């Protein structure tokens, strides 16, 4: 099982800084998450606030996966990343 690590980083969104996390798998960048407020998810069907996949790479990127809903917490995001790393093209 790959070693998933996080690194806090500030992400520039809408001209302002958002809390962000780099998600690394065995030291390779696989996802960038940012903290979104309920204002940014207004009018949506899912989670009101949480962590949004700003960018994904490899199995977490747009070539192989579709954009996931906003995650409740970082743990849920990591679970999604792990599933993607395992699944390849076979599932979203």
């Amino acid at each position: 099982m790959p070693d998933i690590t996080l690194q806090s980083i500030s992400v520039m969104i809408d001209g302002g800084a958002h809390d962000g996390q780099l998600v690394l798998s065995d030291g390779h960048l696989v996802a960038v998450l940012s903290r979104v407020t309920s204002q940014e998810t207004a009018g949506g069907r899912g989670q009101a606030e949480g962590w949004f996949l700003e960018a994904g790479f490899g199995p977490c990127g747009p070539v192989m996966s579709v954009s996931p809903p906003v995650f409740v917490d970082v743990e849920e995001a990591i679970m999604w990343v792990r599933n993607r790393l395992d699944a390849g093209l076979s599932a979203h």
Partner: protein
Amino acid sequence: MTRMTNPLILKLEQRDHLSDEEKRALENAISRVRVVEADEDIVREGDRPGESSLLLDGFAARYKIVSNGRRQISALHVAGDFIDLHSFLLKTMDHGVLALTTCRIASVPHATLEKITDEYPHLTRMLWLDTLIDGAIHREWLTAMGRLSAAAHMAHLICELYLRLKVVGRAESDTVQLPITQAELGDTLGLSTVHVNRVLQELRKEGLIRFQGDVLTILDWERLKKVGEFTSTYLSLQNEDR
């Protein structure tokens, strides 16, 4: 039937003159009017309807569902749109049409459409034109979806909806009612709700549009068109012999 002008007639008359007889034929083609509530299907994928649905009022969406319940809206329909005129010839619906708001729907039996195509060649061409414009809109959407930024794509959609609503008398100077949620806009533009909110915020910040509830005001039409790379040629808005 006594009611205000059928919006389909407004829509077609924007493009070419209709004779009184042709207008009467369209009015008389309506067999019944029904109301479909928001989030209900007007027609379902796989249906073989015996009539076509003309939207008199409200907003509707053509859609398809892919795995995990994800939805793509492939067309937005406003008053005057003949939502599934094509089911007259395609027979089996390859997609569904959903009411986004309460919709007033006029039903036109396929047998009546057949009679119109037998007896009114010019009106038949106008209905053909209507489906050709639907096709032109699909081409434009595909191009915007594939090659414009999310902000430009949204600007393009707003420009188009504004003009389409204006043609059927649903716009007041620079203001239209657009009761479409961010989730529905996301399904239309292929964006997450987060991105829809950011894009709307960006267009607001740039002084291009304003949303108050579901009332959209266009603050700077020229710049909005420029941002969305919008030219209205594909809507065939000019009145000429067809």
